[in-house]
């Protein structure tokens, strides 16, 4: 009887250890690709990172000292243009879905937003190409910004809506019971309470579209020089990496790695920023 119990106990311990080991291995397998990507990019790109990379324009092949300054600035410009379209429409749309409308209409809107979130980003590029680039007969920063902004809208809309729905009903009731008008309640109480979550959603959307290449292929198009007019083509970091990576030149390959490193670092920094924004403030004693 005693021996039987001991055997059963050892078998249970073995099973437990097996499952713990399996889940641990899974965790490692999940983190490993992230680590591999980051370290490989770091190793390959760090050599070409220097001041010239951040300040110089691309130089002809064989001429030393070229950089991606215009691409870095171009990405920032495109992100700004995209934000002007994406943030107001996304946030206001999210507020509408959470606070107004009817159950049926909102269900349809949510479904549409979810479908749009799943549309491959190159489709947005093609759509903007047809609507804007062909009409104005030119690639432009505006077109690129629009394409990225259109990707942002359903993304921010859903995250905003979800965060606002998390605000407890009690706060709305308390504000309305004070005789505060409904729209003021929504703006000054509900959205304010949800503001950290909304900002997180915006930052994550920016990180996502900052790396989008496909929609920029036929809208922003890329530019070897500084962009002086937003209705002209503009360089962007992912585009530049693409162009350099498929080229046959070693020098450009090194610069592509450096560009990739800058991009990955940028996304990393945005996520750190998100952590800082959402850190729980300890209540004052």
């Amino acid at each position, binding site marked *: 009887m005693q021996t039987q119990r001991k055997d059963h106990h050892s078998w249970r311990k073995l099973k437990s250890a097996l499952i713990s080991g399996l889940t641990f291995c899974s965790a490692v397998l999940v983190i490993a690709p992230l680590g591999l990507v980051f370290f490989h990019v770091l190793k390959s790109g760090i050599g070409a990172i220097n001041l010239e990379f951040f300040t110089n324009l691309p130089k002809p092949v064989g001429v030393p000292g070229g950089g991606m300054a215009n691409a870095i600035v171009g990405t920032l410009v495109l992100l700004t243009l995209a934000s002007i379209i994406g943030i107001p429409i996304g946030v206001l749309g999210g507020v509408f879905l959470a606070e107004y409308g009817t159950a049926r209409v909102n269900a349809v809107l949510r479904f549409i937003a979810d479908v749009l979130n799943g549309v491959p980003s190159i489709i947005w590029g093609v759509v903007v190409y047809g609507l804007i680039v062909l009409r104005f007969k030119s690639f432009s920063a505006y077109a690129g910004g629009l394409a990225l902004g259109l990707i942002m809208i359903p993304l921010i809309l859903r995250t905003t809506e979800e965060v606002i729905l998390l605000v*407890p009903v009690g706060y709305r009731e*308390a504000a309305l019971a*004070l*005789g*505060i008008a409904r729209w003021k309640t929504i703006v*000054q109480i509900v959205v304010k309470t949800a503001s950290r979550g909304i900002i997180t959603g915006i930052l994550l959307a920016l990180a996502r579209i900052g790396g989008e290449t496909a929609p920029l292929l036929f809208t922003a198009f890329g530019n070897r020089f500084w962009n002086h007019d937003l209705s002209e083509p503009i360089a962007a970091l992912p585009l530049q990496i693409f162009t350099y990576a498929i080229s046959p030149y070693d020098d450009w390959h090194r610069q592509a790695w450096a560009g990739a490193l800058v991009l990955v670092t940028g996304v990393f920094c945005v996520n750190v920023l998100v952590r800082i924004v959402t850190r729980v403030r300890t209540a*004052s004693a």
Partner: protein
Amino acid sequence: MPQPEVVEPRDPGATVLLNTEGEPLPLAMEANNVSMWYGAKRAIDNVSMDMPGKAVTAIIGPSGCGKSTFIRALNRMHELVPHARIEGSVFLHGQNLYASGVDPAIVRRRVGMVFQKSNPFPTMSIGENVIVGLRLNGVSDRKFLNERLEQSLRMAALWGEVKDDLHKSGTSLSGGQQQRLCIARALAVEPEVLLMDEPCSALDPIATAKIEELIQGLKTRYTIIIVTHNMQQAGRISDFTAFFYMGRLIEIGSTTKIFTNPNEKQTEDYITGRFG
């Protein structure tokens, strides 16, 4: 607010509350044939009730009897629930709150509410929480706001405890203090009536005692209608008590009468604990 309308006939079955000389008491609010539905389900069935001014009226009854639903009709808060419907009228000092053209936001400024779970706004400090009702309704005079801030916190018996910490977050207080903060916030807009929906049910006995004491102090200036599932609390603090059961007002009278010599058998059964 529109002019007082032609007085509609009172429900003849409604109890008229009298003072010690046998005269009808001055009323702050009256409910007249109020019925309420959530969708198809009838929650309140033809309730007519007097609420005397500058007194505490308690509403008691078992869970699900409609106390919280009814009290939300008094400041039109039930309108926030989709598919909620009301028939009948509620009068505040003679003015029908449900007349066409009456702005619910103005009704809610005159009839304030404190909820079961305290809910100070987390993005605001203690001071900002108290005056938020005034500020978001357009008042910007700093001096006036500061005066009202101190006055409201004193009335809520909280001034001494927080006067040096007004900049701290509203959620940094204890549960009982938060509820008193919510009371101060409701009082800051100077309502005529204060509705309280089980304000102490989430609090410990000491915090409860503090709030009960504060209610006694408030009734000299405000009319208070308090919903409570705690009969002993109703007995302690109220002047009048209304007993609700299954959406109907079974009986209303002075607290002493209800607790010692009620007219209805159902009331007596509830008071003595034969059902709960």
